[in-house]
């Protein structure tokens, strides 16, 4: 039985982490919320403007475009990143020669900084010297494109580049989830006649429910926060075609010194995350 005396001791032990959490997380959030109610572009010339920044947000064409792009990015992430990382995890969960090597190989790009990935892919996409256009020329395909400069393809090109590093982390989580599924359960399902896709959708996927909660929520948060690959590859261009919420928030805050407006974008971003992620996690976790 737990002693009553353990409560003050627990609080004492939690205090250092609590102080860090309040000063590094809660206070900046509250301060951003406070800042978002002010306008001005200088250092000491802020004026209280109430909800004006939020009203302006909804009329700002570039913000709405960046919001649309962030939502597209999130949808693509949910469909492609999740599917591809799950597929890789399923393959790498099988027993075959060199399995450990391939696990390392597919996880490796995850450790590379996104800005370095942007530099690598800038050269891959280079219109004249880039690998893709040169390769298509070499195999006789007339497929040369200006991948990043075309407003229709720039966002997708950035997304493809980001996938190189994005699949490693969810793949590892899925792999851990798959390894947590008991062989006995699979064996029992097989004896009952389940096989192939039916086994996968009726047994494996439901048993990966907890892993899905973690993977999908982290992927959604990551998708809404995407920033460095965009800045490194297109800087949000051409003409804001690949602008996303985080890059727009950065430019408003740190390039133009519109601290209040930038803070309102950040608050809006957090609000979207809460609206999407909290219901999802609570719905998925209710039976757990």
């Amino acid at each position, binding site marked *: 039985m737990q002693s009553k005396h353990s409560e003050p001791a627990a609080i004492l032990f939690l205090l250092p982490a609590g102080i860090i959490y309040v000063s590094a997380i809660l206070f900046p959030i509250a301060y951003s919320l406070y800042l978002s109610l002010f306008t001005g572009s200088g250092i000491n010339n802020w004026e209280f403007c109430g909800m004006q920044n939020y009203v302006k947000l909804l009329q700002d064409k570039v913000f709405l475009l960046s919001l649309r792009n962030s939502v597209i990015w999130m949808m693509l992430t949910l469909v492609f990143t999740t599917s591809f990382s799950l597929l890789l995890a399923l393959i790498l969960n099988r027993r075959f020669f060199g399995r450990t090597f391939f696990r390392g190989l597919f996880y490796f790009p995850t450790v590379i900084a996104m800005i370095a990935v942007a530099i690598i892919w800038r050269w891959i996409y280079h219109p*004249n010297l880039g690998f893709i256009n040169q390769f298509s020329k070499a195999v006789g395909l007339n497929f040369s494109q*200006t991948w990043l*400069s075309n407003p229709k393809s720039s966002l997708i090109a950035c997304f493809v580049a980001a996938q190189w590093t994005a699949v490693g982390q969810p793949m590892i989580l899925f792999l851990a989830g798959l390894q947590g599924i008991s062989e006995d359960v699979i064996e029992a399902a097989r004896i009952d006649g389940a096989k192939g896709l039916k086994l996968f959708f009726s047994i494996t996927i439901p048993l990966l429910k907890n892993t899905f909660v973690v993977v999908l929520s982290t992927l959604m948060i990551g998708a809404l926060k995407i920033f460095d690959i965009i800045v490194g*590859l297109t*800087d949000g261009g*051409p*003409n804001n075609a690949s602008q996303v919420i985080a890059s727009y928030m950065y430019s408003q805050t*740190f390039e*133009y*010194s519109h601290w209040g407006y930038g803070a309102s974008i950040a608050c809006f971003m957090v609000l979207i995350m809460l609206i999407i992620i909290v219901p999802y996690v609570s719905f998925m976790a209710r039976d757990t």
Partner: protein
Amino acid sequence: MKKLLCLALTMSMLVPCMSVKGEEAVKLTFWTHSGMRDSIDPLTENYLAEHPDIQIEVSYFGTDSIKDSLKVAASSETLPDLWFNWGGNLGGYYVKNDCTYDLTEYANTHGWDEKFNKGALNLCTLEGKLSGFPTSVNMMTMYYKKSVFERCGVEVPTTFEELEAACEKLKENGVVPFATAGLYGWHLMRIVEQLVENYAGASLHDELQQMNTSWDCEEVINAFAKYQEWCNKGYFPEGFITSNPDDTLMMLAMEEAAIYPEVQSFDNTVINNELDVEEYGWFAFPNGTGRVSSFGDMVQFNANLTDAQLASADDYLSYIFSNESANSEYGAHLAPTSRSDYRFPDAQPHAAEVFSYGSGSGSFTITDQAFPTEVADVLFSMQEALSTGEVTPEEAAKALEAAVQEYLALK
């Protein structure tokens, strides 16, 4: 005996503390551009070896990151003691917000009018205050590769019509006329601002830059129309809008493109890339006024510097950005053209010519220094939108004027 030993030991430990307190070291923090690191690091080491009473901590940043880092530092009142910056609106932000030391009086009493050339001091005078230690003045002209011009039968253009004819000829010969890149906007802007100068003329261009007259005018529309026409004719490299300015020199060196907009430091860049500087020539963009675009850079001083820090900062920077340091074995990344006594190295044949031409012909402020950042970024967006045909020149001019009005209203 034991007590005496203890006393002696205690005294010996106190002696260094006393001497430090007696000669309190002057401490300075300095944020500067990473492009100068190979020069500033060894020169600072040399300087500190001769000045044990001074401590200087230097931090390096890239072109865009220093701008953002300084704004964050200014807003949180954590600016360093000294920081590299450009003139115009970039440096002006810190003056308007009272972050910089007004050096006017110090300069008057320390002979800066003899130490620096007048143009450099003017570029550093913002909001009526001398807001920094001038480090260089830069004149933007067009560099070209002689062999490409010869191969394509192109003469150096002296009029705008000749320039257009040259571009057409280069394109016919499979060479992209301009080696430029649109990522971050500023490199491509070097061409667009010349088109504005060409169509608007000197006085209207100055008024436009100062936001005293509307950008939604015929001259600007004509300039944007010409730029869009050049985009459609393929006068810029394929995919240039999102190409990185760092990769543009390669296009020139590989003879894929012919004309490269750059300041007089081009010679230095070519030499540092182990290319032959004699293979290149230069000309002023034939814009009808003869003016080149120019910009200054400087080291700004924190408004809270003490007198001792101010004197040490001046002494240190005077050593780093001196004719002697620039011509020493470590000076490859320095060109203190702000100094009256600065002499370009013999190995840089075009630099002195370009600087002399720019100083004589007159200049206009480079657009991203003339404009506040938010207006410059709208210009950059319009450069992109015009290149892809998303907007017409009329719409681009309207959008730019709207950005100017929004900025003025906020101001």
